[in-house]
């Protein structure tokens, strides 16, 4: 079977769930190999990658790769593509990995598909465009297909692979070192999962009413192990940090469950969340367009409904 390269997403040495999804997907199309770029590799990481099917783990763990914006990782993948001639390269459809994919596409003169939600035999990709309004099947017609797959699009299945490690020495070019990361600043968000890859997202909007009241949303999120999102109205009002904005000018999420509290469901917001598998809406206004999308809706005051829901979730655990 032909080799499929999977770029590993990792944070503080931990392999992110989306990578396990990509390995699961890659197994259906060929033989998955994981590509670890940057520092932090550990026996735990190896075990995790092998558990989900990585036959080979390419290790390029030099710090150089991490110190510059995107370009060194694209160089690493380009080098591996030329050495291994894989059938495809899979990356997560995150902001950074899509940029890596874009630069790689130019380096190896190959097509790139972004925000893919499914991948069939022959590397036919399913995409959902225009905020979920149109389903597209597309394919790469030149070079080695590069595919950026959305988190939560693939159910993970374990299947042990050999996990054979292979060191890759990569010399980062001067050109790739032109944009240097001089500082990484973490903004506190507690232990909640990453918004774009969370299986459950609880979002608050204008109806939340104030920054303080967002604690209601956070408590529900924590009871479900969910990420917190916010509508543009809420981030514009300064009630919640901008990086949690879900929508056309913010993040796109495709969780298993999306709970929208106090969100009307304007186009801006819908564009970022309507591919969620299950949608729940809580809003005072029975005419709110969010109810058109909702699998289950409650017309009511979120300040009553959400705390009661949180209590129930905690009780039933």
């Amino acid at each position, binding site marked *: 079977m032909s080799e499929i390269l999977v770029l590993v997403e990792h944070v503080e040495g931990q392999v992110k769930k989306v990578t396990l999804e990509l390995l699961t997907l890659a197994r259906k199309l060929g033989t998955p190999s994981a590509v670890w770029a940057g520092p932090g590799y550990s026996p735990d990481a190896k075990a995790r990658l092998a558990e989900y099917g990585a036959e080979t783990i390419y290790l390029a763990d030099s710090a150089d790769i991490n110190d510059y914006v995107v*370009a060194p990782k694209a160089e690493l993948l380009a080098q591996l593509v030329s050495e291994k001639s894989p059938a495809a390269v899979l990356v997560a459809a*995150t902001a950074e990995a899509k940029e890596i994919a874009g630069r790689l596409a130019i380096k190896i003169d190959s097509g790139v598909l972004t925000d893919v939600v499914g991948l069939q035999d022959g590397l036919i990709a399913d995409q959902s465009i225009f905020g979920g309004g149109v*389903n597209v*099947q597309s394919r790469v017609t030149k070079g080695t297909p590069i595919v950026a797959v959305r988190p939560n699009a693939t159910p993970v299945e374990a299947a042990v692979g050999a996990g054979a490690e292979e060191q890759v020495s990569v010399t980062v070019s001067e050109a790739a070192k032109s944009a240097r990361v001089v500082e990484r600043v973490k903004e506190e968000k507690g232990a909640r999962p990453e918004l774009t890859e969370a299986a459950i997202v609880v979002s608050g909007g204008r109806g939340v009413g104030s920054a303080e009241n967002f604690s209601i949303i956070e408590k529900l999120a924590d009871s479900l192990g969910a990420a917190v999102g916010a509508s543009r109205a809420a981030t514009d009002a300064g009630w919640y940090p*901008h990086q949690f904005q879900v929508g056309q000018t913010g993040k796109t999420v495709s969780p298993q469950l999306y709970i929208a509290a106090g969100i009307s469901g304007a186009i801006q917001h819908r564009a970022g969340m309507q591919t969620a598998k299950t949608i729940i809406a809580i809003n005072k206004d029975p005419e709110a367009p969010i109810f058109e999308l909702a699998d289950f809706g409650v017309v009511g005051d979120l300040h009553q409904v959400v705390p009661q829901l949180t209590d129930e*979730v905690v009780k039933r655990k």
Partner: protein
Amino acid sequence: MNIVVCVKQVPDTATERKLRSDDKTLDRDAADGVINELCEYAVEEALRLKEAHGGEVTVLTMGPDKASDTIRKALAMGADKAVHLVDDALHGSDALGTSYALAQTLKKIGFDLVVLGSESTDARTGVLAAMLAERLGVPQLTFANKVEVNGSSIAIQRVTDYGYDRVEATLPAVVSVVEKINDPRYPSFKGIMAAKKKPVEKLGVADAEIDAAQVGLANSWSEVADFAVAPPRAAGTVVKDEGDGGVKTADYLASKKFV
């Protein structure tokens, strides 16, 4: 500082957006064309940089004749001049083809700084700025919510999932901006009138030294094989809260095995 802002005309998201049944490209006639929202933030940031450091702001767009509306909007906000890359040969170009055509044009017109929105509301690939940096061989400073220029040095805050990275480079460079970066100005009446007199240079594929074999639908690196309008979501259950809305929601979550 010679700043070029790349702007894109996109179908208004408030109207129905479609693909054409014949060649499976965006149906530009189905919806109203508007400036991509994040491009307005890019124009605003370019204008602020010019106001702080001097120089000139050029708007660059690639698109059909009607994309001139988008150029006018950017000129009315205060950009000095515009270049409109317009040629039938460009129709249907994918991200690789578009980045190639824009890079060729940028090499021709020259720049110290290229500013873009981080994403368009139609294709939403988020790759164009990275591709331009790769093709032009200049630093990539993308997803910026803050840009500072000091002489030939440039620094940004790059928005990440965990907060932000501070990134430094030397000009020339490519910058893409996120919505948080500023509040775009509304064109004044005076600005709108002045825009009518500002120079707009139209360039075709040959003028910009673009190899026609690298652009257009037939030469794209990927293709849409098929598409269909997504079936509408089945109507769900909506209940009125009568003091038990939270309990009912929990019941629903339990029925779907979320709790």
